[in-house]
């Protein structure tokens, strides 16, 4: 059944002292951004793993990062109750939007003009989804989003923009997925296919599909517009993150449990694996070992020839696929 997908030596990105919370490639794939619980946001050249720079300013753990389509701006969200906008090239902080609770997920829309971010349900404040239009500097200056959507029932744990910026697709703590309009804030569609927390949502490169990663040990593929449930990928461990290959019918998943939930020390070094599933057959066909702790985030390079994973161990590993990976076929 499984074989190791990437036998070439991975590139190791060492620049964080605590667990990685999210990694993202820019649209063209030459850069990779990583954020972690150590308050640091880094950007690296994906070709050789050389660090380009750091975005300094946050004073709390970073939960999310995004880069606009043109690689001009970078957005970060943190437990220090702020969402910050940066100039990608210079590292200069362009805006700081203060919130009442930790910023859990954030992102630029298709045009790069509108940003969204969600705040956690904490300290008496409930979860909110906020929208800012960057073309209106007044909104930034006054810290006044043009739209705020409260989420009373179940807090948002991960979210991405829809294909044309009309709505945000959000995953919730109770396993629900909702489409929130970017104009009115109303719920356009909702589904509940998972029965535990959605840890991550990512889009396919053409934005037609989204893949969810859930604590219920499965990952599911949905159509972005209709939220129709297309495929399911089952494992026996909680899934922390999942991504769709840009060029093959593959998905990659990373997971495992948080260190404090594991009651016995595992003597197996590097036991946590990234798992590859065939997107149409829903069958696992390969694994890549290497991380010393659970994998928190996975991402495919936009050209589909490599992928990266960020782990609880603080390392980000960039793996290039062997030629075998592209030729591999399950009998059909």
């Amino acid at each position, binding site marked *: 059944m499984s074989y190791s997908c990437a036998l070439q030596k991975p590139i190791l990105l060492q620049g964080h002292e605590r667990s990685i919370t999210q990694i993202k490639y820019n*649209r*063209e*794939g030459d850069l990779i951004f990583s954020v972690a619980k150590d308050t640091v946001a880094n950007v690296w*050249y994906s*070709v*050789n793993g*050389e660090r380009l720079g750091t975005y300094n300013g946050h004073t709390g753990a970073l939960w999310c990062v995004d880069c606009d*389509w*043109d690689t001009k701006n970078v957005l970060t969200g943190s437990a220090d109750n702020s969402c910050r906008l940066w100039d990608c090239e210079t590292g200069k902080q362009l805006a700081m939007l203060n919130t009442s609770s930790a910023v859990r997920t954030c992102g630029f829309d*298709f*045009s*790069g003009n509108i940003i969204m971010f969600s705040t956690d349900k904490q300290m008496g404040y409930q979860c909110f989804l906020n929208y800012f239009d960057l073309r209106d500097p007044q909104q930034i200056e006054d810290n006044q989003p043009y739209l705020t959507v409260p989420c009373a029932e179940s807090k948002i744990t991960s979210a991405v923009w829809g*294909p*044309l*910026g009309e709505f945000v697709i959000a995953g919730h703590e109770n396993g629900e997925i909702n489409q929130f309009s970017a104009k009115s804030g109303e719920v356009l569609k909702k589904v509940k296919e998972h029965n535990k927390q959605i840890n991550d949502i990512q889009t396919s490169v*053409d*934005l*037609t*599909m989204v893949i969810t990663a859930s604590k219920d040990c499965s990952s599911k593929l949905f*159509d972005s*517009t209709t939220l129709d449930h*297309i*495929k399911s990928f089952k494992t*026996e*461990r909680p899934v922390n993150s999942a991504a769709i290959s840009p060029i093959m*019918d593959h998905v990659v998943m990373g997971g495992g*449990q948080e260190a404090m939930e*594991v*009651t*016995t020390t*595992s*003597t*197996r070094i590097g036991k946590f694996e990234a798992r590859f599933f065939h*997107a*149409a*057959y*829903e069958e696992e066909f390969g694994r890549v070992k290497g991380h010393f702790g659970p994998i928190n985030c996975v991402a495919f390079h*936009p*050209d589909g020839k490599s992928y990266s994973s960020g782990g609880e161990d603080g390392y980000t590993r960039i793996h290039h696929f062997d030629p075998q990976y592209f030729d591999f076929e*399950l*009998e*059909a």
Partner: protein
Amino acid sequence: MHDTEDMPVDVDFDEEEPSFSDPEDFEDDVDDEELLGDLLREKPQEADGIDSVVVVDNVPQVGPERLEKLKNVIHKIFSKFGKITNEFYPTVDGPEGLTKGYIFLEYGAPTQALEAVKNADGYKLDKQHTFRVNVFTDFDKYMSISDEWETPEKQPFKDFGNMRHWMEDPDCRDQYSVIYESGERTAIFNNDAKDPIVSEERARWTETYVRWSPKGTYLATFHQRGIALWGGEKFKQIQRFSHQGVSLIDFSPCERYVVTFSPLMDTKEDPQAIIIWDILTGQKKRGFHCESSAHWPIFKWSHDGKFFARMTQDTLSIYETPSMGLLDKKSLKISGIKDFSWSPGDNIIAFWVPEDKDIPARVTLMQLPSRQEIRVRNLFNVVDCKLHWQRQGDYLCVKVDRTPKGTQGVVTNFEIFRMREKQVPVDVVEMKGDPESKTAQRIKFAVLHGESPRINASFYHVKNNEMFDKQQANSIFWSPQGQFMVLAGLRSMNGALAFVDTSDCTMMNMVEHYMASDVEWDPTGRYLVTSVSWWSHKVDNAYWLWTFQGRLLQKNNKDRFCQLLWRPRPATLLTQDSIKVIKKDLKKYSKIFEQKDRLSQSKASRELVDKRRSMMEDYRTYREAALQQHHEQKIARLQLRGGVDTDELDSNTDDWEEETIEFFINEEIIPLGE
């Protein structure tokens, strides 16, 4: 307040008073029930009181002069059961004659009458007079039995189908039960090397866990109210036994009886902690008191189910079936008895008694039901003994720990009783090697246990202690067919497994099932299941199937998997001769089976391939439609990105500038020449 009488007449009231009396022939239509319903209910019924009347026979016949005395005596005896409201002493030939010898007594309530019947019937007044007491209504009942014999209504035959249905599987697949979803679901699977096949699956089938009967006929499930037995092709409910709070059960080896234990149900008058039931009739046969369930099963059965016994302080109580009474109506007094064990082949009990002052410790073999002691073996300086029977009862091995005189340490040796030989000779085998090494101890021990009849030979030729010493093992699991065994390091030892062929003491395979908590051989000894139970470890709950040689066949993950139990098989019906014949023709059978396997393999591949094909088709259809929509949205996309086409990575190459940057990728040192 004035009395109305004194009130002045209202002068304005001039009209004639209306008459309120009924017309002459008026009959009202209100019946008595409506008017006085509640009073009527208390109206004495004619039949009342009959149920409270008792008839007492064999009362002394007395004349009027002694009647008063008789009445007093009767009163004294019978008013214990309630208030006597009425009495009648019929006499012969008028009030001057003797009483007839039977009397009628009426009590305040029928329950009191019943008490009187229960307690006074059979009361010996004096040598000639023993009361017979009956309820008056009984006479009626017995009188009205018709002279015609009516055959009792036939109970419909409860057809449970073929109880051995699972044995008829054409591929001879064994079954096993699986409890998962932390007890919410229980399923029965047929074991197939490729994938388990579900036979039956139910939610909340049991409240805690399940047990198979020794021959595999029944599946027992546990509930707050008692246990239920299921069987047959469809696992219908065969029988139900009510025992509130039942926590442990045991079957007799013949599957005729089941023993249930509940810590709740025990009173001095009515010991119900342990109940023995007849499985076929569902009847409660007998209840027993029980102090603690620490060493379940408390009752040990003889192999044929004829006897069962339990040990209490200085006593061995042996009961026989089906009467459930003590054999010879009394227990055996064996002072200091520590442990006993039935032979799996004969009705022989082995028990041992520790040293007592001058009397050495001894192991005794007792034949039942004669209770004849066929062998007694004295042992000296004994610290502890453990009794172990060989599977067919051909040998008894007693592991003796002793402290020889003048030494401090504990030495172990084995006393082997050769049951099949006249006068049961005993071999003594010393333990070589460091007794501290538990593994070595158990290995030798296990070898003795499993092999037959070459016990002595194998024992002396075990050479490879050192190899086994280095193993991470805390448990030994013998294949039910002998010869093969698995050394397992369960739970804290991380699930290390060593598959051993003891015929030549070779290690066939060393594998691992991380955090395995249980190991179960299938009844044929071909397969082994290792599992990680949710009850001991909350992650990675699954059961893995291995061949007897240690080759992994399947990994079955089950959400919150708890327990897997193989369904036992009844003893084979083949004679030794037929088995010999089959073994001779094994090559022929192997060919047929291999062919069958190949066919089913390719069938499975074909099924899989077909399934994949259809899944791919569906996926492609979906993708086409999605891409179609994506294409239609291209204009909107261009607008959002100011005219820049980003649909492909190289869509906008016209805009690209070429820049050459050097990156440090790798350093390599190549030595030149000498």
